[in-house]
């Protein structure tokens, strides 16, 4: 079954601003899908269309096999949402908020159990207006979990959370995923999706520039690894020799360490070249392209 399907989804605001340009995407049921892109790339517009907050200019979105526009109410009945840029009701307690969702979805969850699950067990009867940003985020996540939704849509769930909050979100996503829930969440920080997502999609200026697993993306991006060699007796000729190897660039030497960007398979050639020029290598390490670099390559580089 397909949880989310976008076909040629396009959204223009007021004729001039184009937020989405023909996005095609398919997210399978049970998948944890990370939706990535810098701020303003169109992530929230996509999510807003899934929830019928915003109507597409052209193209079609379907959620859980239902039309995102025509069957929006049923879509939202079966979906838990942590929206972006929301505001809680300051005068109502955490319990009131969860009770409102329970009543709205006509389910019979226990508000206390829901709030304990998101770490608000000791703030159940406190007014949400007094909550910190992180607590409001936990509350809203709790509201999204009510009614055991088939799909969780989390828009920038880590906003305002401290590291332990981020960890809690990750754990909840994993738990929900284990129960068969499809999770679709957006972030502008790639490292946050790495640990939980089966696949990611990267959005840039309203276009989906990549959809793949993290490993697949890394391979496709072809970003080089950084090689560091602890070495003594390095001459300028040795550095030139390393620099001239194919698949090696940016070779430099300082403080007994040679650094170079290398493609797969080139690092042993670097070590060999150094030793051929009379240097003695004591140790070396490679560091793969960080996810952030990979992300940059997609969102900023000319693909």
């Amino acid at each position, binding site marked *: 079954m397909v949880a989310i399907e976008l076909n040629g989804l396009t959204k223009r*605001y007021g004729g001039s601003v184009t937020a989405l340009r023909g996005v095609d995407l398919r997210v399978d049921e049970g998948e944890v899908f990370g939706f990535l892109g810098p701020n303003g790339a169109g992530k929230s517009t996509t999510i*807003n269309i899934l*929830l019928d*907050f*915003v*109507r597409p200019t052209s193209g079609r979105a379907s959620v859980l096999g239902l039309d995102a526009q025509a069957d*929006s*109410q*049923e879509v*939202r*009945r079966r*979906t838990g*949402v942590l*929206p*972006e*840029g*929301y*505001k*809680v*009701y300051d*005068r*109502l307690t955490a319990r*009131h908020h969860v009770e*409102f*969702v329970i*009543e*709205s*979805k*006509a389910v019979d969850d226990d508000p206390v159990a829901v709030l304990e699950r998101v770490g608000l067990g000791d703030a159940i009867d406190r007014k949400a207006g007094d909550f910190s940003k992180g607590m409001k985020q936990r509350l*809203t996540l709790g*509201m*999204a979990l009510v009614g055991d939704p088939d799909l969780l849509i989390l828009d920038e769930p880590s906003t305002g959370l401290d590291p332990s909050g981020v960890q809690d979100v990750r754990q909840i996503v994993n738990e929900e995923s284990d129960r068969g829930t499809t999770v679709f969440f957006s972030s502008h920080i790639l490292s946050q999706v790495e640990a939980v997502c089966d696949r990611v999609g990267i959005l840039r200026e309203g276009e989906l520039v990549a959809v793949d697993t993290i490993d697949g993306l890394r391979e496709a991006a072809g970003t080089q690894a950084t090689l560091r060699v602890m070495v003594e007796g390095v001459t300028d000729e040795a550095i030139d020799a390393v620099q001239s190897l194919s698949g090696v660039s940016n070779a430099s030497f300082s403080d007994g360490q040679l650094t170079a960007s290398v493609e797969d398979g080139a690092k042993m050639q670097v070590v060999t070249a150094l030793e051929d020029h009379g240097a003695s290598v004591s140790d070396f390490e490679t560091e793969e392209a960080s996810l952030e670099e990979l992300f940059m390559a997609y969102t900023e580089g000319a693909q």
Partner: protein
Amino acid sequence: MSWIAVARKDFRDAIRSRMFWALAIVFGLLSIGIGGLYGHFDVLQNTGATNQGLFLVSFVQSPITIFIMFISAIICHKSIVGEWEQGSLKLLLSLPHTRGDVILGKIVGRAGVIAVPAIGSLILGLGLGAVLLGGSVLTSVDFLAVSAGFLVAILVYIALFVSIFVGISAIVRSSSLAVAGSIALIVLQFFWGIIISLLYLILGATFDISGNADWMYLLRILMPNTAFNEVLNATLSAITEWPGKATASTVDAVYASPVTAAVVLLLWIVLPVAIGYWRFESADL
């Protein structure tokens, strides 16, 4: 039926605001104060218990209805557009509510917020006035009938203005426009009589309309307030010796009837909300 959840949430939220309690206290003071003063001074002594009782209700009516109009504007003008601007609408609409549910829930919730203190304090105020008047006022059938009718009318009046101002809130795209629109409507109502008189003078100077101005009736009852008063006076004076008279009785034309006023009243309850719904339904949040 998910508007019930919205209404309940809205009511719960509102009764926790300081505004609500300030409102309840002012309502109470106003109603008990007017009823009490009227009962104490008893200006219509010896005109009979029924008459005293009816004048008590009509004395309380005017300040209470004007107060309700202001309160409705204050409580309702941001009900949709305010949540929209702040982002709580996203929380609301990520739940399985239609946009129609949201508007209906807001109307019912906020009407409840006004109705509870309004009805409560009116019962206290009328009760106190009747007790102070003494005699058989409290047991006068006409007084009880008019009081009951008046309380029902107040509920209609609350529904009228709550739906107008929630409607405005759904039509506009910014809180400041909602404020401007609400104030404009209130000011228009206060000056409506003058506006009509001026119009009559101008038209009278231009055309010969003397003695043939029955159509003025339609203009007069065009405002929500005047339409309401027309219907209220017609209804209460039909069943009792209510002092207020429907102006339709002084105009000799087929359309000059409280029924016309009732239609206008209904349009005011329905139209702003309908336009608001149409605008809100098609909007990108």
